């Protein structure tokens, strides 16, 4: 059920991204809400879910866009690895890791996408790509993360602490009788 819901949401976000939200342009680029959604889901929820949902998001993005189908399926895959760092729970909140995953995921995806486009016969202007696409996209996607992160966080159960006995440090010292 949760995977069906994730697929429907990813599809809707992908379709909205290329139609209704395509006019949003900050620093000359449009935020990639599908990628942000995939990152937030992967960070906030479990790795088992990320293994299914992230490729689904990639598929939806490919179908809604003009890239060859499969580009985002592969390009989004590193998001799962980035999210796995977040699951080590170095810090309590999921939000900074989500921002990091979005920024890293955007960078990796755009580099992979340009490789695919180059391999399929498209012209790639490397300097322009870095200056006008990759750097602004990393910043803009990170800035738009809260819009997707908050709903994903609200509809997700709180993650149990990874360290056994971690609560003991903050627990009250009253003895149980």
């Amino acid at each position: 059920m949760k995977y069906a819901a994730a697929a429907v949401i990813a599809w809707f976000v992908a379709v909205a991204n290329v139609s209704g939200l395509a006019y949003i342009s900050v620093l000359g680029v449009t935020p990639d809400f599908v990628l942000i959604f995939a990152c937030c889901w992967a960070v906030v929820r479990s790795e088992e879910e990320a293994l299914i949902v992230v490729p689904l998001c990639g598929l939806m993005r490919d179908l809604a866009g003009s890239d060859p189908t499969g580009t985002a399926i592969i390009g989004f895959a590193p998001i799962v690895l980035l999210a796995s760092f977040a699951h080590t729970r170095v810090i309590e909140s999921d939000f900074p890791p989500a921002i990091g995953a979005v920024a890293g995921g955007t960078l990796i995806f755009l580099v992979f996408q340009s490789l695919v486009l180059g391999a399929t016969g498209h012209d790639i202007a490397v300097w322009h790509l870095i200056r006008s696409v990759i750097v602004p996209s990393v910043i803009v996607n990170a800035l738009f993360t809260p819009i997707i992160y908050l709903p994903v966080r609200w509809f997700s159960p709180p993650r149990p602490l990874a360290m056994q006995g971690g609560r003991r440090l903050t627990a009250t010292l009253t003895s149980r009788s």
Partner: protein
Amino acid sequence: MRLIWWLATVGAVGLISIFLSEQGALVPVRNVHLTISSPVEGVLRDAADPLEDIYTSITDRGSLVRENEELRAQLEELEAQLAEQQGNEQTITELEQALGVRTRRPDDQLLAARVVAQDVSGQKRMIAIDRGTDDGLDEGMVVMSGAGSLVGTVTAAYEGYSWVRLITDPDSSVNAQVNTGVAQPRPVATPEVITGGGSPTPSPTPSPAPDGEPGATAIRGVLKGDLRPVVLLDLLPPDADIESSDLVVTSGLGGNYPPGILIGAVKSVQQRPESAFAKASVEPAAKLASLDTVLVLINFIPARLESP
């Protein structure tokens, strides 16, 4: 270990999908998806229009003010030239009739299409329109704005949906010419277009100033996009006498575009002594960032599609 296997599987599936996609084997899948998503995209785009207007008015306020000032200045200049042009127009019409020459193309058939989506990756400049092979569209067909200036070409045509590569896309290359010494484009006839079903009806397309107009010369080059709002006209003669606001039109060379479609106006010229060619920045006449409706020239078969 599980992650490694997962990555290998996703990588293999993705690569196979890319290969199949490039071979056209996934067209049915895209058709099914587009059949479902097209109505939703249309609704979302309509719903976003008011928000888009607000957003654009906020973000583009500075440029709108500048553009308004420039347009006022141009309007004043053009009004002064209009009286003279009207006399010339009559002379040209009489000469055309006398010589039996048709500078316009009354047999052109245009199909109106709505823009329903656009590529947001930042690495391409493409839009999606709600017309496809069912409406007679094919790859390579020329797409124009509602006012008749060049927008791009169809690069992928599905059943009810097509992707159009804009002239600002890095892969776009158009043989173009600069009409120097022409103060103003000839009056553009409002095209009669097909908006619903049924067979197309003949309609005129706009034509720029003809090469034969007194004082006008055509300087040919190749127009290339590079993701910026302006396009680059390259391979111009190093001593080309080009000035800002000279009109740029398709030259028709190569047979992929009909000649005489307005592309835009020269914004700046780069002529360096050490360079073998001059370059010019061209501002497209069509508002490519905010297209709602476009016209597809469906009876012009580009050279690349013609059978040998």
